[in-house]
């Protein structure tokens, strides 16, 4: 019975091979500026609710890196009707899950609960959006937790600093230069006034998109969204968007960095465009051909055939502002970073010179369709896709539309973007060497 109901709600034929069903949803704009997207899926009696605050580490001021993420933690510290730390335990007490994450562009709060608790979740989210409790003591204590999080994720892990190293070298002006978790110095410098300013500036309804995905009655859910989130007062001022731009890179950058790594790592990165730009889609395909699966070019050449690398992967980091494509290889014992660098660059050059084969293109499209389908199984995944399209593309139709864009990409498109973006002057090459071996790495890097 549940299966039949789901098929009707999706309203889609399943006869076309491997074409996922389209989203059916309602989109609302509340008088206070909040955007709501409601997607009904009655196959399991649960509901996922996500609030996307359009603020991330790229909105941070210099000297205050890590603030957006620190603030995410403070959102669990109580509001008028919810005691500190109770948000998560109340959700857990009904069997639900709640958490949050912060990235460069957004701060996302989510919960999945048995569907009868939808009113509770909307009520709690409205409560903290409108009346967060902020005091000095809580703030100082939570900052210590964030510092432990930084130690755990970054400082105490082999290759934990790799991302920081890449972005420090590749960006000079744009806040993407700074890690989301921030620096210890900046975390220490943050004050309670910063907290209050940040809340008043960014935690306002016009900066929020809420997505509901799951088992609910549409009219009832629209009523609940209006009842609870609708009563949060409208902000008095627009959300600032004055983020410094990164000047174009005009010559190759090279660096040798020492870090606590067991084996050297080589990074070859290029500046690329932003998520949603027409070039972004062929760049995704290029990245897949280079690095998705054991038949990808980088895996085959560096890991399988030559044994140069223990592991090698690449990624087009397409986010709200122009970012990076980067390939990383961990150098196997007995091999040199110089040889690994040469092999990585050779793969990028080959894509510029010869593009991709028809089979590689088809394979990438099939892999894309797979990721698309397998990435839309749970209500949380569905809500995430809708929110991503609404917030980062400012166009919710891309949640479905991207499938066809990808399937229509040609070989010429992929070669064109390879030529556009994989140029020597936009390249950043980094050798990350185990402590005490940097000089050797530097000599090799010069060769």
């Amino acid at each position, binding site marked *: 019975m549940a*299966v039949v109901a*789901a*098929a009707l709600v*999706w309203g889609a034929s*399943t006869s076309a*091979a*491997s*074409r996922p*069903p389209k989203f059916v949803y309602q989109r609302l704009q509340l008088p206070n500026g909040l955007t709501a997207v409601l997607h009904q899926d009655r196959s*399991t*009696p*649960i509901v996922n609710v996500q609030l996307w605050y359009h603020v991330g580490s790229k909105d941070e001021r210099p000297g205050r890196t890590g603030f957006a993420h620190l603030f995410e933690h403070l959102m669990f510290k109580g*509001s*008028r*009707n919810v*005691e500190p730390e109770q948000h998560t*335990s*109340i959700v*857990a*007490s*009904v*069997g*639900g899950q709640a958490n949050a994450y912060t990235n460069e562009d957004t701060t996302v709060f989510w919960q*999945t609960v*048995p*569907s009868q*608790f939808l*009113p*509770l979740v909307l009520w709690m989210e409205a409560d903290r959006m409108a*009346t*967060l*409790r*902020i*005091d000095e003591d809580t703030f100082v204590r939570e900052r210590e*937790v*964030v510092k*432990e999080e930084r*130690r*755990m994720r970054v*400082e*105490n892990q*082999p290759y934990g600093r790799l991302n920081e190293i890449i972005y420090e070298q590749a960006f000079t002006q744009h806040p993407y230069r700074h890690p989301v978790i921030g620096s210890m110095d900046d975390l220490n410098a943050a004050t309670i006034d910063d907290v209050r300013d940040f809340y*008043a500036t960014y935690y306002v309804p016009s900066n929020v998109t809420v997505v509901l995905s799951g*088992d609910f009655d549409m009219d*009832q859910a629209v009523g609940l969204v209006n009842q609870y989130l609708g009563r949060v*007062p409208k902000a008095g001022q627009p959300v600032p968007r004055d983020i410094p731009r990164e000047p174009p890179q005009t010559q190759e950058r090279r660096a040798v960095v020492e870090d606590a790594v*067991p*084996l050297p790592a080589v990074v070859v990165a290029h500046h690329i465009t932003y998520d949603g730009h027409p070039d972004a889609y062929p760049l995704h395909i290029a990245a897949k051909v280079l690095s*998705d*699966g*054991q038949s990808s070019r980088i895996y085959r050449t560096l890991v399988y055939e030559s*044994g140069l690398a*223990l592991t090698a992967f690449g990624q087009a980091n397409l986010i709200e502002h122009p970012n990076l494509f980067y390939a990383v290889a961990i150098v*196997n014992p007995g091999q040199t970073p110089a040889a690994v660098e040469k092999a990585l660059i050779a793969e990028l050059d080959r894509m510029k010179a010869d593009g991709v084969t028809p*089979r590689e293109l088809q*394979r990438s499209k*099939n892999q894309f*369709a*797979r990721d698309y389908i*397998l990435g839309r199984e749970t209500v949380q995944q569905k809500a995430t896709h809708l929110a991503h399209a609404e917030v980062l593309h400012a166009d919710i139709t891309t949640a479905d539309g991207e499938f066809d864009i990808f399937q229509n990409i040609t070989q010429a498109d992929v070669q064109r973007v390879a030529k556009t973006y994989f140029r020597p002057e936009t390249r950043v090459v980094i050798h990350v060497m185990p402590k005490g071996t940097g000089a050797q790495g530097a000599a090799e890097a010069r060769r």
Partner: protein
Amino acid sequence: MRTFVVAALSLTVLTSVAVGQAAQSWPREFPPRPLQPRPVTFPEFEVRKMANGLTVVLVSQNEQPAISVRMIVRAGAAQDPKGKMGLAMLTATLLDQGAGARTAQQLADEVDFIGGLLGTGAGTDLSFVNTVVMRDDYATGLALMADVVRRPTFLSEEIERQRQQALSGLKVAAEDPDSVAGLVIDRLIFGFHPYGLPGAGTAESLQSLTRDDFVEFHRRHFVPNNALVAVVGDVTHADAMAGIERYFGDWKPGEVPAFNPIAPPEPTRRVIVIDRPDAVQTEIRLGQLAIPRRHADFDALNQAVKILGGEGANRLQQVLRSQRQLTYGASADLDSYKWSGAIVADTDTQTATTAEALRLAVDEFARLQRERVGESELEAAQDYTVGHFPLTIETPDQIATQVLNQLFYELPVDDLPKYRERILGVTPDDVQRVARAFVRPDRLSVVLVGNASQFVDSLKGIGFAEYERIPIDRVDLLSADLKKP
């Protein structure tokens, strides 16, 4: 549902300032009542057994046009022969590196080309091969999978390639404090029982593996009467079964080797400090021997450990993070395997607070064993477990996993729909009884991986005067004192 929300909230006078835009006019109120709940039932599934002994689980759900096929073989790292640690792991890795008439690259290319996924691996008690394909590629996926499961070629050059990768992997893991702490705590808890030995092998054991070892391990364990397979997703039971019959129906059964490991040692208090001088944080593990998955007290002890460090309660997190800000996270798990099990608590803290965090964690083991848990605390753990149930049956893969788990541990599948009653049937008396029977705070094994010279002097003050200190590059899991000579 019990008085969950009202008990958790209080409308006390605010002690801190609400800075929100709506601070003045926002109402003080109780949370809204839940809507009418919809009934939760365990979705339909079917279990069949083929003539050759292969157990087949079928779950049909057609929301997304994909099919997943998951096979489990009842042999994992625990079945590694003496001195051959890493054999199960490397055998599993090699399954898709050449099988039937296809080379490793041909297999990878075919899987990637159809937009499929193929994964192989080994755990403690089992090996697995998982395939995901789009609906129209079901037969192609099964053909590839049958080769991988039944006809791996174990070519010498692929063995060497994967051996080198595994050796490099060991080198990286040896410097990862989380990984080292996990290996050492298992070794302390399980001793020289197979669960105490490194499933990824050692440099020496990996070097010693020959092609004959792989062929023999595969021949002995990869037989249909030692395997389970689940087909889930956009396929009818009849079509799913027809495919399995076609590709696995002529798989010949074999005699499954007996498994008679030595017993794990009695719990003993032992503290190992792994010195990593450049560490900024100490990885902390505390643990002790517990019970296997198929044990009459599993549900009760599992609720007890959830109170100690699981979702819905988690005393460790409350004390170490919420009250003292010593860590980003603290938890405890009941890791129950086929033949034995352990309670392991896991946290990390900056070097200077190592002793404090350890003391607090040990105190929570002691408190669990000493004090009867309150009704409300047990209810919170139970409410989480029971309420969470619909979240665990959302995707066909999740449903199949639950069925496979029951079958793997030889538990009745009829118990799945009775889950709620079983969990709610655990009483504070049960928790107290199992905590007294199984929790041993005076005999905990402890592993601390961090900058030893900065914290060892403080261990005496918290009652841990005796400890063994080992530099991280001299850890030897196979020697009695855990140290390379």
